[in-house]
């Protein structure tokens, strides 16, 4: 990331002063490697060696737990009762599909995901566009500062936002009060608690995603803008017809990564509400919070494992839908 942060936009206003050669993407940028060098030219066997650390780690910390939790999902599992586990077949899954608490958690998760993802996209792309501006002074400073929310501990964020959204003395309610709006009990309401959580997520990730968009924007060849200008396109038209289509792949990437994270929202609702049931009527219980509650509060580990498997299935489905919709929306591939 640091390369992205340190890179400076060319100084001096006019477009003509920009170097005509396309801006070179930093080497470390994982977003859009322009050309794969190195490993491809080496002997194939070396590639296996270089990628081995990842696959060994994945086998131990990724695949093994997945297989193990799939296994215990078919049991009435108690990790502390040595060796004495009851097999109960598909019972956990059957119970889960008729468990209203699960469906409430799914609904909440999707709602929070939608509330945090789409506004965040707009904010991130907007921030990136501002950061790209040639007139911005101290660009490095602003780019660095965007990362601060992301490196702040989630718990610290949740505590601060918990105070902001406090019912009686929270600042949000104080500001609403200036406009004559009565105090909102953010945590007790369904939509209001989702807004509070989505705000936290947006605050945390908007800057990070803005940097990803920025890296991608800086990689757009200047020729495109120059020819658009020759055609008389305004700044706004350049943004809509040049920048956005060029960002298509990045948008897909950010959306999919955001979705995978969004469907696993956990720390924010846990810390905001302070209990594992996600509020008195489970109004902000999310899928992962429900999983955690089943395992660590209710001692139903097999059931929790079944929730985990369903979350995986849901993430897969939503990611696929995402993928296809973004492809379709962005029109035909330019590459």
């Amino acid at each position, binding site marked *: 990331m640091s390369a992205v942060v340190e890179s400076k936009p060319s100084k001096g206003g006019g477009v003509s002063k920009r170097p005509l050669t396309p801006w070179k993407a930093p080497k470390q940028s994982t977003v859009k490697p322009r050309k794969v060098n190195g490993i491809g030219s080496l002997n194939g066997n070396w590639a296996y060696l270089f990628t081995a650390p990842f696959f060994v780690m994945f086998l131990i910390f990724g695949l093994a737990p997945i297989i193990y939790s799939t296994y215990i999902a078919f049991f009435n599992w108690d*990790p*502390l*009762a*040595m060796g004495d586990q009851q097999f109960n077949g598909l019972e956990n899954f059957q*119970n889960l599909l008729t*468990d209203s*608490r699960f469906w409430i958690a799914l609904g909440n998760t999707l709602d929070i995901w939608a509330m945090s993802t789409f506004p965040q996209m707009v904010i991130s792309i907007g921030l990136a566009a501002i950061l790209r501006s040639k007139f911005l002074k101290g660009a490095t400073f602003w780019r660095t500062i965007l990362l601060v929310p992301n490196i702040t501990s989630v718990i610290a964020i949740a*505590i601060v936002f*918990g*105070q902001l959204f*406090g*019912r*009686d*003395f*929270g600042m949000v309610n104080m500001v609403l009060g200036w406009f004559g709006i009565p*105090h909102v*009990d953010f945590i*007790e309401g369904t939509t209001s608690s989702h807004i509070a959580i989505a705000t936290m997520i947006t605050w945390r990730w908007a800057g990070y995603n803005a940097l990803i968009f920025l890296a991608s924007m800086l990689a757009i060849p200047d020729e495109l803008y120059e020819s658009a200008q020759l055609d008389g396109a305004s700044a706004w038209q350049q943004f809509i017809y040049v920048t956005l289509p060029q960002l298509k792949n990045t948008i897909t990437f950010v959306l999919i990564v955001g979705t995978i994270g969004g469907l696993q929202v956990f720390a924010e609702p846990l810390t905001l509400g*302070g*209990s*594992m*049931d996600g*509020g*008195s*009527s*489970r109004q902000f219980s999310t899928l992962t919070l429900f999983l955690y509650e089943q395992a*660590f*509060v*209710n*001692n*139903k580990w097999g059931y929790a494992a079944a929730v985990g498997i369903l979350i995986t299935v849901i993430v897969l489905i939503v990611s696929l839908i995402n993928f296809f919709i973004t492809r379709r929306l962005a029109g035909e591939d330019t590459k």
Partner: protein
Amino acid sequence: MVGVGALALGVVQPARAADPVTLTIWTFGDVIEPIMVKDYKALHPEVTLQIKKSDLDPLNGTNMVTACTAGNGPDIAAVEVSYSGYWRSYPRCFTDLRTIKNSAGKSAKDIQGDYLPWRWAQGVGYDDSVIGIPTDVGGLEVAYRTDLFKKAGLPTDRAKVSALWPTWDKFIATGQKYMKSVSKADQKAGVGFMDSAGTIYSAVLNQGTTKYYQNDGTDSGKLVYATNPQVKKAWDTTIKALNAGIGTRISQFTADWNVGMTKGTFAAILAPAWMMDYIKSQAPDTAGKWDIASMPGGGGNQGGTQLTIPASAKNKAAAWDFITWYLAPEQQLKVFKTYGLFPSTPALYKDPALTEYKDPFFNNAPVGQIYSSGILKLKPIFEGKLNRAIDQAFGAGLGRVASKKQTADKAWQQVLTDLKKVTGQ
């Protein structure tokens, strides 16, 4: 190793050349008090205490489960009373403290007599092994603001205030009287008589002899929450208080609670002994304005912890030395005087150092005397395996009534249906 026998007499004996030991301790809140850590360091320079604090639920619900499964626990782990029923079902996760001797040659059997029997029982596994030694007792009394009581035309003297509410009904009536003196504007701004009416639930529940489980000799006990009249009584009393509107809608241990404490948004808190230190640190400006009166219904208990040595601990002997020192009456007395945590060793309840102890923050109330008289009224309660989960379900039910999402009857029914999924019965 230093002779603990000598320590018990209060003699500091220079440490013999001992091997350095690092004790890892998993705890929450202020179970292990900093001032005592310093004392121990002075007595045992060879022992390094490595303290890792977490929140209660992650500690007792998550970290200890994984530690027991993986066999890589700390040397000492704190288990709070709401999880005691859970952990006493799994004695194999702990060292049986009857089988281990400290440097003075004492095992758990030799020190059992020092502790309150019902607090001791919360650290006994279902197979009769001793898995934990009690720290403090969370004796529950009412902390109230004398200045706000005076403004509302209520008596301020602690004896007269206690006389206002021999029963919970009278307590609620007092609250209503207080609310009448609160202006409409203040009521709208969220001012109330007590911080959270929901806290009445566990206070009443703990005044009984049975909660959610009945001891039938099995590891987990027999579930009786649906039929136990004490549960219904606690529920009904809380609903009555909620309907009377005597509480603010603030929950304890939230940002709003801390602010409300300073601003005088509420005049009374059902305060366990350990909460006194919390009030002092959160609302230092209110020093001298508080006082302590006795609980409606007589006595109360909330919280309390046992110190355990996980089965996988690496330094069991050193850990047991620390626990027996830290929880011995002398040290508990010092913790009480410094932090207000109430000792679990009844011999101290007659000690003038405790009975005559007065706290200026609480208007020089003889807090030692008040809390000890309440604690002696308490009876042992059997804590069952899923205590924490059942507590949460009832708490959520009361929350739904408080926020007017459900009627009391509907909420009660839903709690029972929800709990069927949890307990499977």
